[in-house]
């Protein structure tokens, strides 16, 4: 009996929860009408918003009209309301002759973007996005005036993706500012924007942006479909969206690109990708993404091609260093001593003589210590940050060696690994190498080079099997396409970027016109010039 009643109670409880959810559900009161008596509207609002103190009611009493303006303090721009709304209303008092609602709509404000609202469901939608609502006695309609204006951060320099040359602005937390940053760069009517709300509770604005005619329409529909399928209570960052729409969860590699730089997003849009903006975060995600994209830094395109090519190759090399350097150290000291020149082998052996641990443990201690320092460095309050870096430098460097915990070579290896890891432009890719490094280290411990090769091979197979919105992740390297190599390992000169990547973009494929290769003026022109020069 008691068990039964317990069960019953539990059931009841869950039912209550459901009810609660339903009340929270913004769809529920959609069909209710707006009441004729504005006092009743006020009391209903107060009740349903739980008397929240940030809801401001400003009653007014003009000739024919009595009513109330409602807005949420902090979301709506109160200067705007007093300047354009209340003032305009008071000034235009005399002109408010006729009794019609339309007349009031015409005269109520000098602000644009007016909308008439007919039912209660829309009330919350507009109120909570910062608009001001205008209930009038005797009418079952409300006037909705766009008065959004909350405090936002100024556009500042990017903090995570730095570059030597290139624009210094970065996205902020406001979706409208972010989309405007792109509009300012691509002044084309073909730059299309679609918005939707995701998150049953948070009702977050999410926008899809693409260049019509360049983008592959299939990808756009696929992105929209995946976004529409999302059913989650909250979207607090674009990472939520990224994890909900990516092709494969069981991978450490990012299959969707994210950035806080408007110039990067613009270039991606022009290659035919789709950008997804999420309100409340400065990180914009773009899809589809390919592997090599995570090694392309914005400076690559702003500096000359030979320099960029060299630097890009360096980055790819450092990705591999970050991945296998500790594993190489382990396997050389454990299995393949004959690989290094004799004097060096002796030097390493002599250093390791006092170290009590096998190479793997030694490497693991140092790597884990470093990862902890790095993570702690991220979270630390700025004031104590310096202290930790000093302590870290001591722990990871001199002291560990002097205490005989690790050999000096190991310190070098760890430092190289760490620095190499930072040279990957994309944090998402770098962190993947950080994780895989430990697996490869373990393999190297048991099987030396064979283990490293096995790990790398496993990784390659995995990479080749990934897809991002239908595009093979390793393209255009595997499957190899000779016509798409302008921007892979070698960055071709800008004039050689004849076409957009055909796997990603469809339709308008041409990028540069004919004869873009720069050079000195042709022979005949030069002759004329020099003739003139002689004459003068």
């Amino acid at each position, binding site marked *: 009996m008691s068990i039964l009643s317990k069960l019953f109670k539990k059931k009841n409880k869950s039912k209550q929860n459901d009810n609660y959810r339903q009340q929270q559900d913004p769809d529920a009161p959609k069909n209710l009408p707006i009441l004729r008596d504005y006092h009743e509207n006020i009391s209903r609002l107060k009740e349903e918003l739980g008397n929240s103190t940030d809801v401001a009611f400003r009653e007014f009493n003009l000739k024919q009209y009595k009513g109330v303006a409602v807005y949420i303090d902090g979301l709506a721009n109160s200067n705007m309301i007093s300047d354009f709304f209340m003032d305009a209303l008071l000034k235009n008092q005399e002109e408010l002759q006729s009794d019609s609602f339309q007349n009031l709509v015409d005269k109520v404000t000098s602000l644009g973007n007016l909308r008439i609202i007919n039912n209660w469901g829309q009330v919350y939608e507009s109120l909570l996005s910062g608009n001001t609502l205008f209930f009038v006695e005797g009418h079952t309609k409300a006037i909705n005036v766009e008065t959004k204006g909350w405090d936002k951060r100024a556009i500042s320099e990017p903090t995570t993706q730095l570059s030597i040359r290139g624009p210094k602005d970065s996205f902020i937390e406001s979706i409208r500012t972010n989309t405007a940053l792109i509009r300012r760069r691509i002044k084309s009517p073909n730059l299309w924007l679609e918005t939707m709300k995701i998150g049953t509770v948070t009702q977050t604005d999410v926008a899809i942006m693409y260049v019509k005619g360049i983008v592959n329409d299939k990808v756009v529909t696929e992105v929209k479909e995946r976004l529409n399928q999302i059913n989650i209570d909250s979207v607090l960052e674009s990472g939520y969206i990224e994890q909900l729409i990516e092709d494969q969860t069981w991978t450490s590699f990012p299959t969707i690109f994210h950035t806080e730089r408007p110039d990067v997003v613009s270039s991606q849009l022009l290659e035919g990708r789709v950008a997804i903006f999420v309100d409340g975060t400065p990180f914009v995600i773009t899809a589809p993404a390919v592997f090599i994209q995570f090694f392309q830094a914005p400076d690559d395109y702003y500096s000359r091609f030979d320099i960029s090519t060299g630097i890009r190759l360096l980055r790819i090399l450092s990705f591999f260093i970050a991945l296998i350097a500790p594993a190489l150290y382990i396997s050389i000291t454990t*299995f*393949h001593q*004959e*690989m290094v*020149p004799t004097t060096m082998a002796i030097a390493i052996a002599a250093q390791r003589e006092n170290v009590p641990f096998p190479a793997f443990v030694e490497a693991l201690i140092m790597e884990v210590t470093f990862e902890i320092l790095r993570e702690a460095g991220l979270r630390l309050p700025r004031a104590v940050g310096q202290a930790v870096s000093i302590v870290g430098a001591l722990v990871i460097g001199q002291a560990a060696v002097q205490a005989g915990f690790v050999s000096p070579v190991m310190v070098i290896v760890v430092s190289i690994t760490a620095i190499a890891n930072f040279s990957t432009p994309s944090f998402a890719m770098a962190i993947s190498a950080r994780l895989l490094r430990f697996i490869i280290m373990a393999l190297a411990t048991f*099987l*030396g*080079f*064979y*283990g490293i*090769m*096995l790990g790398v*091979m*496993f990784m*390659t*197979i*995995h990479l*080749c*099997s990934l897809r991002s919105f239908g595009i*093979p992740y*390793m393209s255009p*390297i*595997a*499957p*190899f396409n000779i016509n798409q190599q302008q921007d892979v390992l070698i960055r071709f000169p800008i004039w050689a970027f004849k076409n957009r990547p055909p796997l990603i973009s469809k339709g308008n494929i041409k990028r540069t016109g004919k004869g873009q290769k720069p050079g000195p003026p042709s022979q005949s022109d030069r002759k004329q010039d020099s003739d003139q020069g002689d004459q003068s």
Partner: protein
Amino acid sequence: MEKAKIKSTQLFVLIVLFEMGSALVVGIGTDAKQDAWITVLLGLAGGICLFLIYAKLFLYYPDVPLTSYIQKITGKFIGRILGFLYVIYFMYLSARVLRDFGELLTTTIYSSTPLLIINALMVLTIVYAVYKGFEVIARVGELYFALVYCIALLGFMLIMFSGLVHMENLRPILENGWMPILKITLGQTLNFPFGEMNVFTMLLPYLNEPKKVKRVCIGGMILSGLNITIATVINIASLGVPLFERSPFPLLSTVSKISLANFIERLDVFFMLYLMVGGFFKITLFFYAAVIGTSDLFGLKDYKKICFPMGLIILFASLSIASNYAEHIKEGIIIVPIFLHWPFQIIVPVGLLIIAFFRNRKKQLIN
């Protein structure tokens, strides 16, 4: 059959990796002494002739693998038995290459690691690749093709600069006349590696342009044949005939002789890197053919379910097909060519082609 399509360049790359896979490692035609490279070239010529048979069969039935059209040609009953034998043949070969591979690692570097561990990890990687599908294998092939070629070029230059190559080691050419060379060609190099192209009878239906099949495959065979010839010539020239004959892995011996400026030496590891890539593709393709053949014969909808069990079979077969390396090699030289390669690579396909020719002519006459 899996729904997959590969480009002709991908097929080309797979063929080159497959052919060079273990042929470079174990060294072929060593019995012909300084004329080993001639047997390789003759084997290549013979292999191309054999491949024309496979290509003709493929063009008769461009949509299905060998195990399916063998049933159409010889009838359900005999066809199924023959198809099953082919599956076992492919499984045996993949186990064999796996053994070669594991033996090399245990004899050279990992002398105290059990063969089981080395083979098991390799099989795990291969099963993963096969599980991911043929398109993925082809893509991995493209990636590693570039890697292998870079290493090969580097190795070639290092051998040249080290001054190891003594061309006089190749003389006298044709010391004992043509007869021994022909004998070795028919007994060894024709079947291994060039006759092993018959594994592609299972894989050709994946090609997206069936018309290009001859050009692509023969091109791949010629490129790999020439590479093997060059490697053999270099091996003989730098090792000398006696050492070349005795060495179980001639290329490894050559590579370990590289010494430049007293700093670049002991490059065995790079050889191992190549060995892993080549071995991986050879075993993977044999294994994939076996898996696809099984699912085709038994009408399985999803081949992925049998990847792992068949991987286990290959793993244990690789350990049990021979009790030691000498036995393994002896089997490979004496038994396998006569009892396995000749029937499966030459006799059965020729028979199939003859029957298919008459069947299709009859059809054409009726039409």
